[in-house]
């Protein structure tokens, strides 16, 4: 019984327990005799909990008051500590909020862990959209899934609500949205009957579109709108957090053809994105295994179309590029480095303070304060600093997060920007607490060691070599971490420069682009489009300063897809062996190559005289020629692509269709008139490119007017310069680099401050020794050398492991380095040079102070 009460007494602080525990136990056992047992225990428990908390609170209040007083007495220290912490916690909180948002947090769907994407896997592509017929068969033959749905992204002009608007959206099968487990914000989802050929048009709006276009009018349900000149009824609005398939989606319509319709017979045209929900007991690996069997059966059944076609199952959560993942991990790693450096710096500051305060601590011990009590007081002080710094750090994070949104991959079904919410705040609080304990507990324990608490009798020279060594170790660790960050940032700078210097294969300066939507039934006929192009292009070419203009299906780097299988008579075997049987397909108007400065190496450009009545022509890129007719004359050669036999009339330079960092398929350009009415409408040229000497701003009003004259209902969107498009290729890298660079800079400064602090302290402790040396005739240069040597030792001790770790970090970052070697000598030399500079700068002031020590004053002061 008594033992149990003694155990409860452990809730009190040790000092209090030592002081009063015996008497309390005695009183308690006397009490126990005259009260009923259960009631007594409950009362005891409540009483102990309340009073122990109260005693702790009393101590905390005392410690807080004491802390505020001591901090107020050294505002410089307090300010430095808080700022260093704010940077460290802020960097980590910002990095966490983005990393958590992109990599960890579950997607906003029901049971998101069971959602997967399905892809076809063919030679050369790990992720290829499904062909409709394969989708139908995969769905029919598999048993791993509770459901499977498909979508493709579309864009459409919305007319009838003020200005014509160009909108991005998705065309979905009726079962897709229920499969995701989402409910509409208002209205309802699609029915199966609405997803049939010939069904009247229905559309769901995104929350943002509803707000922007209809001002959040709840009466919008049932309203009619025109999308690409076809009537649609609004049947619902999706929730605010619903972004599917990506954050660009503003509306959803049913595909409106049935899975048994003719449209779904095609096995070679891959355009369906497929999402499925795993059955609860099925793992991704099991589903993958089953789909491989299914794909194998289909390959045997359709050996021609499904040659070497397998499947790829990946959780929806993970379906974005490895590069995005690596960018974020590097960011988090760098943030952690900064925090560790900040901790080391603060631990050092506190150790120095503890040395200075040793007399005070000794006095307090002499007056009866236990060691535990002193440690507790010092830890309270660290925690107060950490929490103030952490609160500021959250503000830093709030300011920094919007700068990081470029690191959020656009393909994920999540909003563009994470918000700093409770989860993030808890993280920040945890980091602050851990930091406070991390840099506080150790120095406190160290300072309060009984053996060290004797200097009441001694002079102020206590402290000894042990602490000096510990502090040196901390500074060395800072230097190491800053070298790692400097090298990582340096490697990424080199990679960025290398990518930016990649030749895209086309002209970027002076080219403006925009999109005209050419809605479908209206522009279904090739002739009607030709008339439109004629009017627009002849008008634009006549503008002053314009050298040329043209239309193309998709702009390079904006759209990497639009890939089509190529068949060359007698080359089928070779092609499948080399794993490449596709090329990027584009329809162009004459003048495209000269507008973008793509060199025409042989033959001719497409021409207005290439029509349905003349042989089907194609201009191909050099790599296309290299693949099929190496070292032969390609002009006049035939190949089959996009339903027709085509003859090569020209050869142009290759361009980077898929972007600066990815390998692109060879390119095939087809005259815009050589396509049957209503065929291949996805490939209709909608992007206008204009090369001119005038500034885009001065040109645009005239271009808009010309387009308006050609078709008053034609909205214009995506106005950009080609230079911006290419710069966009490296935007996320640039962002990441800025952040990492800032981190490296902070780390570098902190390490410099660390060296400076340590040496200053060492010099002030050795004032008497240095005074004696000077008195004995030591030269100033000798004194300077002595201090600098200490600094150099610290730097060398930090740089050497730093180089090894930096190489390891470089290896981990290799996927981001675009071919720059992780051991890039220039980067390492630069980082080492900076470290030397930092050491010299950090040591300079203490060295000068040492030289100016007045020997007489120094010796007398003891």
């Amino acid at each position, binding site marked *: 019984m008594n033992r149990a009460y003694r155990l409860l007494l452990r809730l009190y602080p040790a000092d*209090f327990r030592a002081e009063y525990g015996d*008497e309390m136990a005695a009183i308690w056992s006397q009490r126990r005799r005259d009260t009923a047992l259960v009631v007594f225990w409950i009362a005891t428990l409540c009483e102990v909990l309340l009073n122990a908390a109260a005693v702790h609170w009393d101590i905390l209040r005392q410690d807080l008051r004491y802390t505020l007083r001591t901090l107020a007495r050294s505002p410089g220290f307090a300010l430095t500590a808080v700022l260093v912490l704010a940077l460290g916690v802020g960097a980590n909180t910002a990095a966490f909020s983005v990393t958590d948002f992109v990599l960890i947090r579950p997607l906003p769907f029901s049971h998101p862990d069971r959602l997967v994407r399905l892809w076809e896997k063919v030679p050369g592509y790990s992720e290829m959209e499904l062909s409709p017929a394969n989708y139908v068969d995969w769905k029919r033959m598999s048993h791993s899934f509770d459901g499977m749905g498909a979508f493709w992204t579309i864009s459409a002009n919305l007319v009838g609500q003020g200005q014509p608007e160009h909108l991005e959206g998705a065309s979905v099968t009726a079962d897709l949205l229920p499969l995701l487990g989402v409910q509409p914000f208002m209205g309802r989802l699609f029915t199966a009957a609405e997803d049939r050929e010939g069904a009247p048009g229905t559309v769901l709006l995104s929350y943002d579109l509803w707000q922007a276009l209809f001002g959040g009018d709840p009466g919008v349900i049932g309203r009619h709108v025109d999308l690409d000149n076809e009537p649609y009824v609004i049947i619902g609005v999706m929730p605010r957090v619903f972004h599917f398939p990506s954050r660009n989606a503003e509306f959803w319509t049913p595909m409106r053809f049935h899975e048994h319709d003719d449209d779904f017979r095609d096995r070679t045209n891959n355009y369906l994105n497929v999402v499925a929900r795993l059955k609860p007991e099925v793992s991704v690996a099991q589903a993958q295994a089953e789909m491989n069997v299914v794909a194998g059966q289909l390959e045997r059944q359709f050996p021609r179309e499904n040659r070497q076609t397998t499947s790829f199952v990946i959780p929806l959560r993970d379906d974005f590029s490895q590069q995005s993942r690596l960018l974020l991990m590097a960011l988090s790693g760098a943030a952690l480095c900064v925090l560790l450096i900040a901790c080391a710096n603060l631990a050092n500051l506190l150790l120095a303070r503890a040395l200075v305060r040793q007399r005070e601590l000794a006095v307090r011990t002499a007056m009866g304060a236990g060691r535990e009590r002193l440690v507790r007081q010092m830890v309270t002080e660290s925690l107060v600093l950490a929490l103030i710094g952490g609160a500021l750090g959250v503000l830093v994070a709030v300011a920094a997060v919007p700068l990081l949104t470029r690191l959020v991959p656009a393909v994920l079904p999540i909003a563009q920007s994470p918000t700093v919410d409770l989860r993030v705040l808890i993280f920040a609080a945890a980091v602050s607490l851990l930091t406070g304990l991390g840099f506080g507990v150790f120095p406190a324990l160290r300072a309060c060691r009984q053996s060290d608490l004797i200097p009441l009798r001694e002079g102020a020279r206590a402290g000894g070599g042990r602490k000096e060594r510990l502090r040196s170790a901390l500074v060395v660790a800072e230097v190491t971490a800053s070298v790692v960050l400097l090298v990582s940032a340096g490697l990424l700078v080199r990679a960025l420069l290398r990518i930016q210097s990649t030749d895209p294969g086309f002209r970027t300066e002076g080219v403006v682009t925009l999109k005209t939507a050419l809605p479908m039934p209206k522009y279904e006929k090739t002739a009607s489009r030709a008339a439109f192009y004629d009017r627009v292009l002849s008008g634009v070419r006549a503008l002053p300063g314009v050298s040329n203009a043209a239309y193309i299906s998709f702009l390079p780097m904006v759209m990497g897809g639009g890939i089509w299988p190529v068949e060359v008579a007698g080359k089928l075997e070779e092609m499948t062996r080399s794993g490449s049987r596709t090329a990027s397909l584009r329809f162009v108007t004459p003048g495209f190559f000269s507008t973008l400065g793509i060199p025409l190496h042989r033959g001719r450009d497409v021409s207005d005289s290439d029509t349905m009545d003349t042989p089907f022509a194609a201009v191909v890129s050099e790599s296309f020629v290299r693949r099929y007719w190496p070292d032969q004359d390609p002009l006049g050669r035939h190949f089959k692509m996009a339903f027709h036999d085509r003859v090569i009339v020209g050869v142009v330079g290759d361009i980077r269709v898929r972007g600066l960092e990815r390998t692109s398929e060879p390119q095939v350009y087809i005259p815009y008139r050589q396509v049957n009415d209503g065929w291949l409408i996805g490939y209709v040229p909608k992007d206008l490119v204009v090369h001119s000497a005038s500034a885009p701003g001065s040109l645009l009003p005239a271009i808009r007017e010309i387009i308006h004259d050609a078709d008053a209902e034609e909205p214009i969107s995506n106005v950009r310069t080609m230079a911006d498009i290419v710069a966009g290729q490296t935007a996320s890298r640039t962002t990441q680099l800025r952040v990492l660079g800032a981190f490296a800079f902070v780390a570098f400064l902190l390490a410099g401050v660390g060296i400076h602090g340590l040496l200053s302290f060492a010099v002030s402790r050795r004032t008497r020794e240095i005074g004696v040396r000077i008195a004995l005739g030591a030269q100033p240069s000798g004194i300077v050398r002595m201090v600098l040597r200490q600094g150099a030792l610290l730097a060398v001790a930090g740089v050497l492991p730093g180089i090894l770790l930096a190489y390891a970090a470089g290896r981990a970052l290799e996927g981001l380095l675009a071919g720059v070697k992780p051991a890039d000598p220039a980067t390492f030399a630069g980082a080492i040079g900076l470290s030397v500079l930092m050491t010299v700068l950090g040591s300079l002031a203490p060295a000068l102070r040492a030289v100016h020590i007045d020997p007489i004053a120094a010796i007398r002061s003891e």
Partner: protein
Amino acid sequence: MRETRQLAAFLPLPPATFHILLALAAEDRHGYAIIQDVAARTNGELRLSAGTLYRSIQRMLEQGLILETRDRPAPELDDQRRRYYRITPLGSAVARAEARRLAQLVRMAQDRGFVTERA
């Protein structure tokens, strides 16, 4: 004047503190004796728990309202584990000030007719 202000900083006293001062007014007591005295004076209505008692005692020692005394009773009555506490002049002054404050309150209540003798 300065002294009054100093005393005012203690007021109002927590009930436990006031009762402990009352218990120590007549004689030095150890912890359990304080509890018993308080219980007796309040007809058993207020029974201080050990935790409340010693938490109050700790704070009162720090504030200088009481002190721990080295005078012990005759050895045959003494228990070595026990500590005895004595009220300080400051403690007496604070207790008087609190009593004055309470008396004033009661007078005010009487003026408004809230207090009937021996309710």
